[in-house]
Every structure is written in C-alpha cells, then in structure tokens.
C-alpha cells in the first residue's frame, strides 16, 4: 500500500440548502492512519460536511475522491449507489452520535456486530459468532452480553457496540459524528481511551466531528475549524489549540470552561 498518497482528496466541496449554505468551498486531503477533527459551534456545517463526505448527502458542487484498496482513486459522487453502499459497509464506518441511529435495536449485540460480515457473504454461524465475541471483548463488552439486545445496554455500552459493529470488517476510514456526545465524563474518558487505542492499533483514518475541543485534542492529529459553513483555520491540533491564529478560533479556545 502506497502511503505517500492521500486516502481521501476533497476539493471545493459545497452544499447549500436552497439559498442557505450548509458548507462551502471545503478543500483538504486525508492521509492513511490520520485522524482529522472538524470543530466549530452548532450550525457551522460540520455535520453537513461529514454527511457529504460519507455520501449520505450529495454535495451541490465540488469533488471528493477516495483511494480504493486496489490503489485507484474513485470519484465518490460518480460511483453507483451499489458501489457506494458496498464501500459504506466494508471499507468505511460511520459512528453516529446517537447509537440508536447506528444499531439495530431489536436484534442481539452479536447479530449487530455480525451483520456486516453476513452482508459481505460470511455464511458460517460459528465463525461469525467467534468474531463477534472477539470484537465485543475489544470494546470491553462481556461475552455473556452477546445475546442481549442493545436496549438492555447503557449509553456508553451502546456506543462501544456501535464502534465494534463498524470496525468488524476492518475499515480504513471511519466517520464519527460527536462520538462522545451525551455521555457523562468518566464514561467519555474510557470511550476516548478505547477509541485512541483502536485507531492506533488498526491504523485507521478517521474524520471526527465534535464541538468538544478536548475530544479533538485527545483523538486527532490535525484539526479544521469551521464557522458559517467555511473552514476558517486548519493545522496540527496542538498548534491550533495552543496558538490559535484566527480571531474566531481564539474565541473558541478561550471559551472552554476551566474546572
């Protein structure tokens, strides 16, 4: 695998909702194994951008090309729906803020993890179950919970289950939308620990949307700050947070509550 080339190339991506701007003129490259945080206040276009990149939304203009496993770049918005959906369930993952959006709440945890395997053609029950147990273990869910429905899980467990469900096919790129939103701080800390470990172990590339700068600091190497649909500042996470250059970033960083 050639690591000298980016995994994802995004160029002047814009999405407007009628006359309103979702996001405008976003350009960046994402490299294999890199975690990029997209920060900004509510309504700044973070989620719109993420949905466009993950092809859940079609952008109004601009392009994004993704380097497939065979090394060729494919223009995301010109792929057929079948190809995009195949990419979504094999090479990509999407972690929703609300686990109920990303999980099947009425089937067991094991089936939730196994679904992607069955979707790509695994037809051996024993093997699927063994993989599911392995992945539940990796996200610190006991093997005795494999036949429980996610309804019976706490918020933190559901989020970890969602992560396992996404990572089971060994994706190369994971999109995360506020992965720690709505969790209390101690649970958040453990989840961040876990995510950090998984991302570095598996060499995942990730795009993490968050309004929580501390989460961005912990998880990401690079950061994009958005305001009113545009990228106002981009750079290494530590540099942006320790030495913010744009007035808006300075405002954002200085607004963090100190304990």
């Amino acid at each position: 695998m050639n690591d000298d080339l980016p995994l994802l190339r995004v160029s002047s991506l814009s999405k407007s909702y009628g006359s309103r701007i979702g996001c405008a003129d976003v350009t960046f490259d994402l490299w294999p194994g890199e975690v990029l945080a997209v920060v900004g206040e509510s309504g700044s276009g973070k989620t719109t951008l993420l949905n466009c990149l993950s092809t859940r939304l079609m952008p109004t203009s601009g392009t994004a090309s993704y380097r497939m496993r065979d090394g060729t770049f494919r223009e995301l918005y010109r792929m057929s729906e079948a190809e995009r959906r195949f990419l979504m369930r094999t090479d990509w993952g999407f972690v929703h803020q609300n686990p109920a959006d990303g999980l099947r709440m009425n089937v067991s945890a094991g089936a939730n993890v196994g679904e992607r395997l069955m979707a790509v053609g695994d037809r051996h029950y024993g093997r699927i179950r063994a993989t599911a147990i392995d992945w539940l273990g990796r996200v610190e869910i006991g093997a005795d919970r494999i036949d429980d429905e996610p309804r019976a899980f706490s918020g933190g467990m559901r989020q970890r289950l969602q992560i396992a469900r996404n990572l089971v096919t060994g994706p190369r790129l994971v999109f995360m939308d506020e992965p720690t939103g709505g969790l209390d701080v101690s649970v958040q800390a453990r989840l961040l620990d876990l995510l950090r470990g998984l991302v570095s172990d598996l060499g995942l590339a990730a795009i993490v949307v968050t309004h929580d700068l501390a989460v961005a600091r912990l998880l990401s190497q690079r950061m994009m700050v958005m305001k009113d649909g545009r990228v106002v500042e981009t750079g290494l996470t530590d540099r942006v947070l320790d030495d913010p250059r744009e007035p808006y970033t300075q405002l954002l960083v200085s607004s963090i509550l100190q304990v």
Partner: protein
Amino acid sequence: MSARTSEIASYNFAYLDEQTKRMIRRAILKGIAIPGYQVPFASREMPMPYGWGTGGVQITASIIGRDDVLKVIDQGADDTTNAVSIRAFFARVAGVAVTTETAKATIIQTRHRIPEHPLGEGQVLVYQVPIPEPLRYLEPRETETRKMHALEEYGLMHVKLYEDIARHGHIATTYAYPVKVEGRYVMDPSPTPKFDNPKMHMSPALQLFGAGREKRIYALPPYTRVVSLDFEDHPFEVQRFEQPCALCGARNVYLDEVILDDRGGRMFVCSDTDYCEKRRDEGGVAANPFEPDEAAT
C-alpha cells in the same frame, strides 16, 4: 349491456371486470419474467376481508377459464371455512368445476400448504400471502427494502437466522422460511411450513403468489431453482415427525396435531385431507410419492 338492463345485478365471469383481469395478468406475466420479484398491482376490493385470501382470489379470478377445475385448500384441508367459501364463490361467479382431488385440479388456490401429491406440468398453484416482504421483520421502511432487493443486499436476512440460532440453538423459523430464487431475489414463500420449501424447488407447476392487502404479486415459473437460506454449519432442515399419520399411516408427510379431549389425548394426522382420504380408500398402504429426502434444497 344496454339490451339487458332488466338484470339489475350481474357479475362478469369470475367476478372481476375484464380490465382488472388484464391489469392483474400483466402483473403476473411480469412476475413470471422476473422470478421472485414483487410486482405492485392495483389490488381491488373483494367481497371478503383482507387476510382471507383477497390476493389469491384476485389471481385465481384473473387466470381461471371455463374449462378449469378448481381446488381450494386451507392449511391442507379442503373442508375448512376459508376453502369451502372460496370454492363456493368461484363455483357461483365463474360456474367452473370444482374438485378436492389434487391430481384433477388445474388451478389450486392454497393457504399455507403445498399438496402432498406431486404437482404436474400445466397445474397452477395460487398462494394467499399476508406479508410478501421477507425483509420486513428487520427493516420496516418500504423504500429501504426495495433498495435492498434492487442492490441484492441480503445480509439482513441472515441476521434473522443468526438470531434464531443465538436464541434457540437452531434455526427456529418453521414457516415463511426465506428462499432465494434463481440465485437472485430473496422471497417469502408465504407462511407455508418450511416442510414444503423443497417442493417449490424445480416444481413442474406454475406457482403464483398474491398479497391483496399489500398489493403485490410474485411468481415462480415451472422448473425454477428455489433454495432455502441457511448457514454452512446450520444447514436447512425440514420438520420431521416421529410417528406416521394416525389415520392413513403415511410417513414423510406434514402432520397436524389434533386435540381429542381435555385430558391430554391427541393424535397426529395428515394436514392434506385429500391425500389422507385417498390413502384410506386404497387401504392405507399406498407408498408416499413424495420423499422430501430426494428433493434437493
């Protein structure tokens, strides 16, 4: 019609008007052309409630001709309410010959069984279907299930079977057991017991499925490959019965449990009443012509 205005109420042959029949026949032809694909059709109000076989009745009404011989079964039996009334309905509105003998019928409308006597070329089996969508249990959105069929995304179907094994240790789905048709569409074989699934495979008879409430028609042309879904380490199996039919002694047939009294008395008898009666008339020694073990799955 103008010359006969004195007749206040008269039915067209087989109840439905000719335009409706043409519309339904088009849907049937499309269904035959794309085996297992659910074709939407403009289901009509029928003089019976939804859930009583309005889909099957509309198909039968659209394909029946004056020379046809109709058999109607309900859970294998010719003599239960649903079967008797639908048979009487067609005897009245189409004036066709009716029978209870599987071999003599040209059209067999069925609710949830395939007769034990093997079907032959030229016969048509019409199923009454309550819920045509096999993916509905896990995906409630119709827009999404249609997309999944279009893109052949059937991983979800195995999630259901996985859940069965995880909960019960084996695939506990005993009826409406999902099948794959000609290696393409996953289809709900209507709530027939899975015992009958192997009979659908390479059947010489034409099989038509009608869901009146859900407004869908689908079909299996003769000699179509129908494979029941399963796992490599949990292969598809049909139900087995420990004892033979208490009345005719048949083995390898589907049996109904009949409660005899309130002290635990029960017996198991053929669910196919015509088959059972035939065997008893012949002295209960006729060999079962259908051996499930021989049919490939």
